[in-house]
């Protein structure tokens, strides 16, 4: 069995005796105690007589994969107070306007587009009036996970602190997912057996991908 992280190899051995044409089946229940991508395999079969005069060996190189998800915590109350459910995302300067939602009028300014002039309000006021639209702020979140647990890379990695980061990142992503936000996840930590850093692009997640 090979696990990610420390790339540990654990060997499991079964020894039994079989009569001619007899079959044996072993079933296991695995407790998923450690997050990560685990490979089960390969299998090596070795047989021989009880005296050790003859032996034969074969290998099955296929792997089975087992992916253990990180713990997802409820961090909604801890992270975002009710009046700012998206943190500090609502800024003072609106970025886009919803032209279907008019919230009022103001005096025309030279940089205003002509199509935004409210002609009825202009007639009432006697001066040019421009429609004021409701601002729309994009609901995007970038989750950045720092995989460096030490100041310098040569100091190695603290596995416990790294697992804490993964748990928090998964919890925040779960919160964003449940709330219907567009988000992405990047990290300088490597994805197992890929050699590349983690990068889930904006909107690249599947709906309801969290348990």
């Amino acid at each position, binding site marked *: 069995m090979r696990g990610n992280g420390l790339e540990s190899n654990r060997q499991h051995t079964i020894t039994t005796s079989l009569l001619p044409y007899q079959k044996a089946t072993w079933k296991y229940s695995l407790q998923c105690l450690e997050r990560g991508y685990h490979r089960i395999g390969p299998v090596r079969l070795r047989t021989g007589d009880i005296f050790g005069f003859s032996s034969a060996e074969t290998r099955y190189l296929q792997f089975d994969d087992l992916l253990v998800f990180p713990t997802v915590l409820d961090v909604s109350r801890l992270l975002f107070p009710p009046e700012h459910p998206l943190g500090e995302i609502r800024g003072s300067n609106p970025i886009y306007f919803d032209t279907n939602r008019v919230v009022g009028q103001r005096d025309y300014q030279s940089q205003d587009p002509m199509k935004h002039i409210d002609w009825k309000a202009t007639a009432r006021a006697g001066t040019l009036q421009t429609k004021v639209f409701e601002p729309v702020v*994009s609901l995007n979140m970038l989750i950045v996970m720092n995989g460096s647990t030490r100041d310098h890379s040569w100091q190695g990695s603290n596995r416990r602190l790294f697992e804490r980061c993964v748990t928090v990142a998964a919890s925040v992503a779960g919160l964003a997912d449940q709330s219907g936000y567009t988000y992405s996840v990047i990290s300088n930590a490597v994805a197992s057996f890929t050699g590349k850093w983690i990068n889930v692009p904006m909107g690249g*997640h599947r709906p309801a991908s969290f348990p």
Partner: protein
Amino acid sequence: MTIEALAMAAPYVVAPLSEVMNAGRDSLPPGTTVVLITPAISDSLLADIAGIRDHGCPVLVLYAGDGVPDEELGDLTVIPMATVLDPLEGHE
């Protein structure tokens, strides 16, 4: 896909965090909230955060280390996560 990606994360760093963030910074939609999860806060990390804020993105730091960060962080919003993480590890 996200939780699968996080499940596959291994505790090896393949690049400085600044390089990872710079790779996608220009494609970030304006106003995107950046939630940075870190177990340690260093001077280089603070410089990276300043770069993000200069780009117009608000930054929220979730400190996943033990206790609270020692560094002086000014007006940066930092939330220590020890209160939710310590019980998982059997700490008080």
